[in-house]
């Protein structure tokens, strides 16, 4: 019983750590993503469209 409670506590601590780590990663991704990857949202280029036949 005590082992089970200890395991649940360990799980909870790990889950909190993982959640915080992910939030930190998302914050970095937010800044870097906008700076590096962000592109024009226009799906149709100005030139004539091409399609695979």
């Amino acid at each position, binding site marked *: 019983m005590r082992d089970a409670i200890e395991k649940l506590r360990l799980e909870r601590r790990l889950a909190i750590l993982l959640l915080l780590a*992910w939030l930190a990663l998302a914050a970095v*991704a937010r800044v870097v993503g906008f700076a590096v990857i962000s592109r024009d949202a226009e*799906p*149709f280029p100005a030139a*004539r469209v091409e399609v695979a*036949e």
Partner: protein
Amino acid sequence: MNWRRSVPGDAEFLLVALAALWPWEAYGFLLFIPGLHVTLIGFAAFGVIALWAYALVARWRLQLPFELAWPTLALLALIWAAAALGKLHSPFLATGCVLLFVAAARFGRAEGLVERALWTSCLSGGAVAGATLWALISGMLPVAPWVRLGVPGVDARELAGSGLGFVLCLAMAIHFAFSGVASRTKRVAAAISGALILAALVGVVANGLGRSFGYIPPRYFSLDGLSLATLLSALWIFARVAAKAEVQRRESPRPIYVLFLAMAGLAAFGLAWLPAAPRLSHGLLMGLVCAGVVPGKRRAAEVSRRPGAEIAAVGLVAGLSILNLAHVFPANERHPWNYESAARRDFPAARYRALEQRMDVFERRWPNETRTHYWRAKAALARGLPHRAAREFARALRSGDDNRTLFPSPSDPETNDFVTRLRDCCSAAPEPKRLFAFERALVARGNTDSALAVLEHQTTADAASSRTRFDATPLADAAAFLLGDMALSERLAAWPAPKVLALLENWGATVTPAPQSFPAEAAPFVVVAQLLPDQVELFAGAANGSRSTQTWERPERDYGATAWNGGGWTLAPAEYGETPRIELRIAADTDGRCVAELRIAPDGALDFRRVATPIGPTPDTPAILVLLP
């Protein structure tokens, strides 16, 4: 129904089937079930959730650890609260994800079921990768996920979803190939599958990165309170399942726990960067991982006792794929050939340029398609271009030949509605007489008598021209050409000549006496030029019986347009030497340069020559020149 013998076995079979189907989400349009308006993936997920609901009602046990049960219930409540406040667009999909997680976590707790499901996903991912590689190499439209609805680029969300799916399948392939848990045959199969997945992943990403659109980094930190609470609830469940995997790994270092952690880490990393929309597969995989890490006794799996059902499932998948490749159902919105559903979205949003470019793609692939012209006609009418609308409407009503088309021609109610709107548009114009779009649409629909009656009622010859006498045949031919049916020429030629002339004058014709050097027997002489986004149409007719029509394709289409009465393009006689000429000039387009010229040979033969290619916006009205004797 005997609960113990039937429901868990059915649910396990459906879970393994879902594990085989989820890597095909990018090709979900192939698994569309007509009539039910869902894909086979959605249908199987619904089946698992229904069995879970039945089990819940029958036994009143959630069979989910408390530390996961309460955030799950909270997440469901938050999803529907956000949906009620209009902050969540797809509450049913989100609910389906959550319920599939719960159902997979419950039914996945059979001995060896999770490993079997992940092995199936690994092989299925390899098959998807093979199909994708083939699509990349052959360039076939129906199986390339990044060519969607004629859009020549990659929707960043689609790319992210497909990429994440490939990455997860690759992790599974590496696990089965190198962890030593599988037989030699399985290891080889997993290695081949992994190589295919890696190649497809590189191919898709390399092809997609330069052509992706709509990428917006996830805005997790600018969400409102309710949406943020929903996100955190989902993340908490995710983190808790990952933490369980880590605790289990510390207790007994089995390779499957490493796979679970790798999958969780890859998904978490991907979702932090990429704008992936929720998918049923997210709920399924998290449920399977949860089933694999929740401690406790496992019951014996029953799924292997259903060989007949497996054959039936493979047959169903093959049958649906063939059906959806052979026929495009309008409700199958994700089908890359379903321009109808795309147009239904583009049209109300006034994305006419996108609509026209999309139709270009489909008309190049299916030249006999007529319904694309119906949508072009509607777009032109909405932009206030009645002549172009009537022209496209006529194309939409042309009888298709025996070759296959994707969608049928417009129905009678649709054509009636269009003609009514066109009539209203013409009536509301500042100079309704100048427009013959409504009459042209009537002719296209076969109401020739009505069209001629309307024209006859509108046209009155003035007294001055009534005194002159000339042959009306070339003028009638020109009017018939403009109305889109040369068979009308005979009936128009039966009108008094001044009335036919007045008709062309109403339509903006420039009427001028033929110059001295012009062959006397050729007058009256008519030249007509119509400029369309994709074509230039020319007509010339002389009193001596010479006729010439030409249609030139415009290599660069331009969907811009000047106003309905936009001028700037003219037909005018040029220096009369030995060979009389008439030049077509488009001032707004080629800086007044001559675009085309008509030469009249000494024997009366007419010869159109292309001088320059018209580019730029297209005027909606034709240019008409009449040279009278």
